[in-house]
């Protein structure tokens, strides 16, 4: 990264240039890479720590509490019970009270964190007696398990990704390389939804998303075997990471097909995936029953096609077509599977035909979005999955990303209000948009939006503002107690559909664009 060039400003005259130099913030170009990356990482850590001070999910809400209690309970289980009992209903492990429903890597992570908590506060993870244990010390310890996981997994992955991106993973102009990387890193690290869910609500999405991000970075820097292994680990941490599987599969298959001995390449990747799987599932591979038990916990189909209000296809159209009433679970499973496959098929085919790193990023977003919109049992927190590749595309599609973040946050608004995280929501939204519009920052290309289009686009935005306030202040009518939730869901769904159509279109246009320029991709 060239450090000696003058900062470029739009005005050419020296007075304006000098004035801009007088207002130079520390991360403006020329910015030394290592200290600036450290600065941004520390700022991201600060924001996370501050959000952690706020309440967690289910705070004080006996008897069931929330996700915080679930994670604490899993630490208790994995610490005290043998592996054969983790997914089985036993006298010590009541599956009805927050049974484990993530794959084994989550369980190992709970075991590790549980042993750390046990070392300083055994009462918090004592078998059976620690149900509903809440104290300032245990909150501090558990919050730090999330913070440390974030620091150890997500941050290095983000740094690797930005490095791989700028080193030629994606075609970047010299100016983007010099000036854009700080903004991109900030966009990836200071992602409001991720911070609010992981460090507010309390979850460990940073681990599975971090592993996925590492896999993406691996693909970009041509370390495909490492990428395959990391992605398998991600799937084994949270099965929702499967949302990205078609994108990885399509892109890697496309790349393999373009090489000299495709079968060998595919087999190498296959061995890597199977090897990693075997390593993680080792304790459960001794019998068919044991493995099946785990899988049964991972896919709870009996919970229905949707739960609560989530901005996806099934829930939004359920106002008109009552899916749950018309169809039984089996046909609904089939319908959602076919809809999902149909939705990600174009993106998948494009990557198999002409794989490219940029197309891979688009494909990740399109695949995860198709799963979010059409899959079975989607939660509102799953919006984090399409958000990750969207943040990676932030330099290419800045307006799309800003728009998406706003509505993704809005789609989680009811959850945020339930968790009393409103203050943190406002602060994160504010901080995100300040960084997004930071002075001297790089917003890349700007879409030419006509006046009429601007009016149309501002309509959902204004509606969202009105809903933000009315959700809190106004009582919904007795006949429709979830009126505001439904309205929020509709608005977000409409915006998500527009976004995914746009990104699918962009991915298809990549083919024609590269063909017209005659770029040869070196694979």
């Amino acid at each position, binding site marked *: 990264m060239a450090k000696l060039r003058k900062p470029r400003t739009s005005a050419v005259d020296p007075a304006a240039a000098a004035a801009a130099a*007088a*207002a130079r*913030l520390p991360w403006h170009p020329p910015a030394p890479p290592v200290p600036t990356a450290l600065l941004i990482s520390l700022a991201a850590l600060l*924001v996370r720590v*501050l959000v952690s001070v706020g309440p967690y999910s289910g705070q004080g809400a006996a008897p069931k509490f929330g996700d915080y209690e679930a994670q604490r309970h899993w630490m208790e289980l994995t610490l005290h019970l043998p592996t054969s009992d983790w997914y089985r209903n036993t006298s010590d492990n009541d599956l009805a009270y927050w049974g484990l429903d993530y794959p084994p890597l989550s369980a190992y992570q709970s075991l590790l964190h549980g042993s750390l908590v046990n070392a300083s506060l055994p009462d918090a993870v004592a078998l059976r007696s620690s149900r509903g244990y809440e104290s300032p010390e245990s909150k501090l310890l558990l919050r730090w398990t999330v913070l440390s996981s974030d620091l150890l997994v997500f941050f290095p992955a983000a740094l690797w990704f930005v490095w791989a991106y700028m080193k030629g993973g994606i075609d970047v102009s010299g100016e983007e390389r010099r000036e854009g990387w700080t903004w991109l890193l900030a966009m990836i690290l200071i992602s409001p939804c991720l911070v609010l869910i992981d460090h507010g609500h309390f979850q460990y999405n940073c681990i599975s998303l971090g592993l996925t991000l590492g896999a993406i970075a691996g693909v970009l820097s041509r370390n495909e075997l490492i990428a395959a292994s990391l992605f398998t680990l991600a799937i084994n941490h949270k099965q929702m990471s499967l949302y990205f599987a078609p994108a990885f599969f399509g892109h890697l298959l496309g790349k393999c097909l373009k090489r000299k001995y495709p079968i060998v390449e595919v087999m190498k990747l296959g061995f890597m995936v199977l090897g990693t799987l075997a390593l993680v599932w080792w304790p459960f591979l001794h019998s068919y029953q044991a493995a099946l038990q785990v899988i049964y916990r991972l896919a709870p189909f009996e919970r229905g096609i949707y739960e609560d209000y989530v901005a996806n296809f099934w829930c939004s159209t359920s106002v008109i077509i009552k899916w749950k009433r018309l169809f039984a679970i089996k046909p609904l499973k089939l319908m959602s599977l076919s809809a999902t496959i149909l939705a990600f098929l174009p993106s998948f085919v494009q990557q198999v035909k002409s794989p490219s790193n940029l197309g891979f990023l688009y494909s990740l977003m399109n695949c995860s979005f198709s799963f979010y919109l059409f899959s079975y049992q989607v939660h509102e927190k799953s919006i984090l999955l399409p958000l990750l590749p969207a943040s990676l595309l932030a330099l290419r599609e800045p307006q799309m990303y800003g728009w998406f973040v706003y509505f993704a946050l809005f789609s989680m608004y009811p959850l945020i209000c339930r968790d009393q995280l409103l*203050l943190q929501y406002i*602060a994160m939204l504010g*901080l995100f948009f*300040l960084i997004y519009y930071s*002075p001297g920052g790089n917003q890349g290309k700007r879409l030419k939006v006509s006046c009429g289009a601007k009016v149309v686009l501002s309509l959902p935005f204004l509606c969202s503002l009105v809903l933000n306030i009315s959700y809190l202040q106004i009582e919904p009518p007795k006949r429709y107690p979830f009126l505001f939730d439904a309205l929020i869901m509709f608005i977000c769904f409409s915006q998500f559909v527009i976004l995914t159509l746009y990104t699918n279109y962009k991915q298809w246009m990549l083919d024609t664009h590269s063909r017209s320029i005659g770029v040869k991709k070196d694979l």
Partner: protein
Amino acid sequence: MASTASPATSAAAWAFAAATFVKLLLVPTYRSTDFDVHRYWLALTHALPARQWYTDASSRWTLDYPPFFAYFSRALSLPAPLVDATLVSIPVPDAPPFAHLLYLRLTVTFSDLLLLGSVLLLAGDARRRQRPFLALLLVLWSPALLAVDHVHFQYNGFLMGLLLLSLYFLEQGWDLAGGVVFASLLCSKHLFLVAAPVYFMYLFRHYCCGRGVVKGLGRLMLMGSGVAAVFAAAFAPFVYYGQMQQVFNRLFPFGRGLCHAYWAPNFWVFYIMLDKILAFLLRRLGFNIAIPEASFTGGLVGDSSPFDVLPKVTPITTFLLVILAMAPYLVKAFSNPQPKHIV
């Protein structure tokens, strides 16, 4: 000047906005007893007339800042009844609900706008003075200020803003304005009295001297009357009520002892340590040294300054020592007062 200043201005405003959101995130963090102090003062200045501000003892957090701070508290309490009437009721209830906490935290954030204003003024001039922009940024983002103001709970951002405003005026050569603003700062928090000698010397030499006796005297009268007017605006009501002795006692609580419960890292630490070491040695050597009751490390606040060996330290002593330590700067300010050196 305006067009070339705008990148700096927008960058400073941007930095302030970022700091404001961080302050918002700091709302639910730890707060010290200073929070209760200021909550009580908010209620006190709103609910009771000025006559009773320095005499009310319904809470142990008695008002010990000068009157301008009391007026400031009153101003901040004006919108409070719209939020919650119990915010401004005496006596103050014990455990504050979240709405009270949010309101008070927001008043601190709001008062920081004055700091932003002063920084913007200084930023507009930064290029000419060759002051790096980062320095101004660090004032807005000062971790010490964030920790003391927005966690521990105080209003130093506002007061710093006043100080910087006064310094800006002096830098521009507008001495009268600078002097008046400093006087109002003194009437807000008398802690800033430590800077008063330097101000006095600088203003006396720069503003009054060197223009001939008549003009000089005239200017002295002008400056004097400006400062006197400020002090009058602050203290006049209390002179009228005949409460000046009470006010003085509240403002300068020498009864609290030489060191606070939490020691500040200053010279007296060495003095105390030396005293203890000497006492220990001398006792070993057989001298009969009385062991006093109140101890410095006990965290107790008391009037007696029980030094075993070394002489007792009185307030007058500390005052003289402070003046002595400041002497070099006072001499410099007197001999060669330059606007660009004042900061």
